């Protein structure tokens, strides 16, 4: 397997961490990019739910926008990345020596060094590693940390990643398409549906890596969220989640199953035209009123309501073993 850049790889690791592979080497084949994202990390954010309770959240910061690093807070989900097909992209991740993290651009398929999986390359610490990649397919992706992944992703270390197609020179300026020659849309929503188990949100970054039962086999979520907003009630009206659109407009919903348990998203009576999944156009569009999905799947859904009204969208979360309903998160599509 090889390629671990760190000093000694697994076993003792740093401090109480085991089977981590510290490193921040130079990027092979480094070139000047078309797009640069500078990401730091935060380990002391929080999210407050509709019932007043809150949990600790970790995530990535945008260093270019003045985001801090380490013991600060930050946005949840982490700042989205948006690039165009064919651009050379750099994601420069800076982590101080207290922690280890990576960026894995889920669904993007770069070289081994730039895939952001610790045990296949390195866990970034005490420096900066620049992931270099060039997206070849427009669509919906997301990025997340791939160090002690069950914990770090659950803690919130993820953000949206959108690859737009190269603009069609025959389209009017400003035309937005889901992919090259794909459907045109006017309004866009990114719904990352996730679940939160507060018991996990008290753990430290390397919990369990040296062994011992810290409960990472057993996720018992109590809160169900859409794009960082509590789906109990806030997501019904939060303008970052709920959609308000004009009749006649086309809406593109980028649905990301960001949790670990399986889900079903029901569009409340609206019919979705699913045009792509996991960053690839479907051979034929699929008409459906709901989608069953599992962790990390993405579906790109076009809606063009023909009447005004309000539709309530419900994400139902199911236990991965029993299939029991764990909870729901709701938002709305308002057509005016």
């Amino acid at each position: 397997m090889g390629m671990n850049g760190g000093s000694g790889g697994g076993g003792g690791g740093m401090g109480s961490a085991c089977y981590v592979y510290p490193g921040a080497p130079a990027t092979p084949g480094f070139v000047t990019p078309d797009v640069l994202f500078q990401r730091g990390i935060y380990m002391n954010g929080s999210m407050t739910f509709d019932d007043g309770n809150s949990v600790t959240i970790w995530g990535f910061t945008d260093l270019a926008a003045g985001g801090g690093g380490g013991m600060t807070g930050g946005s949840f989900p982490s700042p989205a990345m948006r690039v165009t097909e064919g651009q050379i992209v750099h994601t420069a991740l800076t982590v101080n020596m207290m922690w280890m993290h990576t960026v894995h651009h889920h669904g993007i398929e770069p070289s081994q060094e730039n895939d952001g999986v610790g045990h296949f390359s390195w866990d970034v610490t005490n420096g900066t590693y620049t992931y270099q990649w060039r997206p070849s397919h427009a669509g919906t992706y997301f990025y997340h940390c791939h160090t002690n992944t069950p914990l770090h992703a659950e803690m919130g270390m993820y953000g949206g990643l959108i690859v737009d197609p190269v603009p069609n020179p025959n389209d009017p300026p400003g035309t937005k398409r889901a992919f090259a020659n794909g459907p045109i849309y006017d309004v866009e929503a990114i719904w990352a549906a996730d679940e939160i188990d507060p018991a996990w949100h008290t753990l430290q970054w390397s919990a369990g890596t040296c062994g011992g039962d810290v409960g990472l086999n057993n996720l018992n979520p109590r809160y169900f969220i859409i794009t960082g907003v509590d789906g109990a009630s806030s997501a019904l009206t939060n303008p970052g989640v709920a959609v308000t659109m004009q009749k006649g407009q086309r809406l593109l919903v980028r649905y990301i199953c960001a949790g670990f348990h399986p889900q079903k998203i029901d569009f409340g009576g609206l019919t979705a035209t699913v045009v792509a999944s996991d960053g690839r156009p479907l051979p034929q569009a699929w008409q459906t009123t709901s989608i069953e999905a599992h962790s990390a799947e993405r579906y790109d859904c076009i809606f063009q309501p023909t009447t005004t009204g309000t539709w309530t969208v419900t994400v139902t979360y199911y236990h991965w073993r029993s299939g029991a309903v764990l909870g729901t998160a709701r938002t709305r599509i308002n057509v005016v």
Partner: protein
Amino acid sequence: MERRAFLKAGGASLASALMGSGMLTWSARSEAATISQTLYITDGTKTMPDGVSVYVKGYGTTANTPLIPAPSIICQEGDTLSITVYNMLSVTHNLVIGGLVSGSAPIASTGDIAPGGNKTLTYTIPSGAAGSYLFYDNKTSYNRFLGLHGGLAIMPAGISNQLYSGSPTFVKQQFWILNDIDPALNTAVKNGTTIPTNFTPRYFTINGLSSRPPGAAGHGDPTIDALYDPRSRLSGHVGDRTLVRMLNTGMCSHAVHTHANHMEWLTDRGTIRPAVWKKDTLYLRNNLGKIDAIFPFEAPPDAYPPVTSGHFPMHLHDEMSQTAGGGLYQFGSMTELEFL
């Protein structure tokens, strides 16, 4: 119909077309054959990644060593399967071949095999049956979780490179059989105590093994480390399109995620998909869910500069499955995708 690679078998009775050491190997035949296999239901223990010893049962090829999963069997439509099963244990067991479509009735069974007894399952495979099957013990709802399971690949008659007649083609094929282990169940079976009704799996396997990251004991040992197990690991050059027959014998649903390439999704729960979607993550249902997909071994499309080699993981994205004993991330159900 595929015309190449026909080998005359002359209707002979073949020693079981099983493979203990790696990928499924297959050459199509123009004539049917009888595929014979003898299996022994035995028990033993397996050491989990955190050192915990867990009681298991399995179908072995000798009278005292369970193999988990059982050796895979590959045959083609028209063949006759003749599977003789000896029950070396003190409780009744069986072996059934599950239906092609998840949730459908088994297509063949030994019937009950009393302690110390044996039965032979004989089944002639009809045309149209090509696909991926799990054979397992359904005497109880949980025997398959203990290790009593294996994979059966039925090829379309006379075809060596298609899942079903007319499917996209492949050059290699393998099983990924996923299982989840709650030792409380295994211990209860061993001790004859009340079977738990609310399982909480603590260990997660692919073809009977969990992964071991660099630095861990057993890393790189193909008999211990699922990253290196040739039954699980996909290894190929660009163009070595590999059919993966994913069978979920375990308790939990899973999200099968490949790095480096999207998969071509051919079937879900035994039903041919109306169109082939390219997916980096596939929803593999529990309750005997199954998926067939081709890992295309294309150059990783988003690398810059371009590359054709490298090592990448296939892991389950329901990340609880990437742990062992409640911790030990990287010691779960994961294998390696090796671009040579």
